[in-house]
């Protein structure tokens, strides 16, 4: 009886891993596709980290814009990452998670700037925080905030 319960627990984890492998991979590919498409659409709004504006006449209007995204990794990649933590080295799946979150945050900020008719975003900054779930799998959900100053040219 105890053996059966243990076997069931192992089977449950394996099933979860298989489910996560497919859903996680699908979610990531779909997200990248959408990111690439929107980066093309919003590409004309330049995002710059410089602090000083080039001289513009008449002086433009400026306002704060921001965008954020909370993205979670799937169970399969979290499992791989935990294995990787035994040997050390690069964790590719977490790199792509951070990349997706940052690009998504920038896109949302660019979209907000686009809506108000801005042509550029100056002095852009990132803020990254991990949303803790507690327990063993504490890492795996990240929040990225991108904010900057939208520059709206005057007629």
């Amino acid at each position, binding site marked *: 009886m105890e053996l059966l319960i243990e076997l069931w627990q192992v089977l449950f984890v394996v099933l979860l891993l298989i489910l996560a492998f497919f*859903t996680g991979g699908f979610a990531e590919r779909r997200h990248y596709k959408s990111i690439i498409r929107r980066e093309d659409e919003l590409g004309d709004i330049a995002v710059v980290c410089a602090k000083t504006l080039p001289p513009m006449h008449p002086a433009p209007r400026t306002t704060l814009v921001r965008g954020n995204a909370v993205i979670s990794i799937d169970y399969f990649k979290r499992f791989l990452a935990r294995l990787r933590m035994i040997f050390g080295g690069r964790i590719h799946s977490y790199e792509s998670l951070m990349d997706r979150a940052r690009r998504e945050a920038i896109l949302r900020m660019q979209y907000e700037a686009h809506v108000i008719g801005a042509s550029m975003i100056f002095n852009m900054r990132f803020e990254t925080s991990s949303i803790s779930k507690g327990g063993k799998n504490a890492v795996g959900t990240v929040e990225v905030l991108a904010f900057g100053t939208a520059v709206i040219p005057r007629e």
Partner: protein
Amino acid sequence: MITSTLETVPGRTIREHLGIVQGSTVRTKHFGRDLMAGLKNIVGGELKGYTELLGEARDEAFDRMLEQAKAKGANAIINIRYGTSSVAQGASEILVYGSAVIVE
């Protein structure tokens, strides 16, 4: 009210500095959202509930900062920065601060 992450307001000169203004709020996650988040932790993807929650929290912190600036008689806030810190398990603090100034 002009808000900016830059140190100047283009085309205007800063007449007076009124000091730092800030707004903050501490939020915790909501049970229903947490349930969805648990599921998303398995399948992967964006946690829209959390994205919205943090967005609303930032709006509120921002409004508080604006109120402070208005009370000081400022017409612009420059050099704005955001900060996030977790104060307790499952709760985070959202902070926004900047310099209140009068521009002409």
